[in-house]
């Protein structure tokens, strides 16, 4: 659906060159929700703008549905942009227009027939749940409602792709959840492919199928959310997921626990969480497992459980127990001093 090949982008500020993107390649499949995560300044915003050419890449190729976007003339580019909806952190609505006009105006400027404008505006107002606020002005709406208007405005073009530029970053957690729920519905019910950028892990966790992690203008890691989430390879990714931080235990306690056994971090994926691994451990290997910390993360299609477990017992017995764990459907990571 979207293919970026070796994209780089250099900005000139006076005599300085700033490399916002360095050789970024990625592919977004039809019907999926693809997320790019990174701290601010990582180049995410530049990247998403390269897809509809709000920003022209310095090098590389951009394909949308197998068409090389960079070779399109102005008119064809405008046509293509109408098939790519975009929503923003700042909503970007007309302040002087009502909710209804905000959705209808772009359609009118594109020459969509009157009846169809009315029908589409009403349909998408209904989908985002704002039919009763159709005559309100943006200044009378909450942040979440404004983002819904922006989503309806984007959907009213009946796009095949929706680009989301930090759409939930300015919203409180509850509103964020509601907007993510809406995006998920848009993806499932309308079959719209979504490409989003965010600095919130929660957004990736909740709705994305695949993810790319960006740092300093480069994609440092990409894959399915479950893989990246449970087996992060790069330090950057780990920082985001920060399981270690979640299970941070005081150094003194850790020292004591390590004296009497081993500390392991277990990650359970979906089905494997139902097997009583720890009980088996105690029964079969004559060791004493105890849970130090734990939690469950809900991903889009499955849940991921994390446990920090202390296994107490004779050194040889503990080692066979750990070996047993490795053979199970569980990800095991030993925590050392």
């Amino acid at each position, binding site marked *: 659906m979207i293919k970026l090949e070796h994209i780089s982008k250099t900005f000139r500020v006076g005599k300085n060159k700033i490399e916002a993107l360095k050789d970024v390649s990625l592919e977004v499949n039809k019907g999926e929700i693809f997320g790019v995560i990174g701290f601010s300044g990582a180049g995410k915003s530049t990247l998403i703008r390269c897809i509809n050419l709000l920003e022209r890449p310095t090098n590389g190729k951009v394909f949308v549905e197998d068409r090389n976007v960079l070779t399109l003339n102005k008119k064809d580019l405008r046509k293509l942009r109408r098939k790519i909806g975009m929503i923003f952190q700042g909503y970007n609505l007309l302040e002087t*227009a009502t909710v209804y006009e905000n959705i209808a105006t772009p359609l009118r400027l594109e020459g969509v027939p009157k009846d169809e404008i009315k029908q589409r505006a009403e349909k998408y107002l209904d989908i985002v749940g704002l039919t009763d606020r159709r005559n309100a002005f943006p200044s009378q709406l909450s942040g979440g409602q404004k983002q819904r208007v922006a989503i309806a405005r984007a959907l009213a073009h009946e796009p095949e792709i929706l680009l989301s530029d930090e759409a939930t970053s300015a919203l409180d957690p509850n509103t964020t959840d509601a907007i993510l729920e809406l995006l998920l519905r848009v993806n499932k019910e309308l079959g719209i492919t979504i490409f989003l950028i965010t600095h919130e892990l929660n957004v990736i966790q909740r709705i994305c199928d695949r993810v790319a992690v960006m740092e300093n203008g480069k994609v440092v890691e990409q894959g399915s959310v479950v893989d990246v989430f449970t087996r992060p390879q790069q330090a950057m990714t780990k920082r985001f997921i920060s399981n270690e931080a979640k299970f941070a235990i005081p150094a003194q306690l850790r020292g004591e626990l390590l004296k009497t056994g081993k500390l392991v971090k277990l990650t359970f994926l979906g089905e494997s969480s139902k097997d009583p691994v720890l009980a088996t451990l105690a029964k079969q290997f004559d060791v004493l497992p105890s849970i130090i910390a734990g939690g469950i993360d809900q991903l889009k299609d499955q849940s991921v459980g994390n446990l920090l477990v202390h296994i107490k017992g004779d050194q040889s017995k503990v080692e066979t127990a750990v070996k047993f764990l490795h053979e199970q459907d569980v990800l095991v990571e030993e925590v050392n001093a």
Partner: protein
Amino acid sequence: MAGFLNEWGGSIWDAFIQTTQMTLISLAFSILIGLPLGVLLVLTRRNGQWDNPIAFTIVNSLINVIRSIPFIILLFFLLPFTKSVVGTTIGVKGVIVPLVVACAPYIARLLETAMLEVSKGVIEAYQSMGISTPKIIWHVIIREARSSIILGLTIAIIGLIGETAMAGFVGAGGLGDLAYQFGYVRFQPDVMYAVIIILIIIVQIVQSVGNLIARRLKKN
């Protein structure tokens, strides 16, 4: 009072009509010239939609040069130009040209400021929807700036009313001329006071109407 009105009412009314004519006609032409210039300034500036440093520098400097010249000097400086455009240098016709030359760059500047206040984000959103630049200028930038534009035009109108007072020098009449000719030169201060009061009322009305329309258009 009745005596004063009998003696001066007709002259004051005529002067009022002349001032109104001069102001409205030059305002219309100034908007016609100033609006495109303002749009050009917004578009050609750095990171604008038609980023063009040469065009921007030319328009920008031209506006600065004209705005540096006091109106009374511009009035005389432009005499040959006025003659070639409207065929005369006197009367209402003769004063319209210098008024427009003075006012159009001012309006361009006011509109530029108003349009620069429009959020870059909305413009970008409309670009991302495949809307062409001319449509974005009219339906997004000018629409969103309309409240500030009206306030700017209000300032311009009041400035114009002031400048028409100098129209007397080219025989165009008007309230300012009346106050000067009779109130000052022929020492009849009551005429001057009457004119001043009328001017105060006009300016108050213009400003209040401007504020009202601007508030109506703002919607937030």
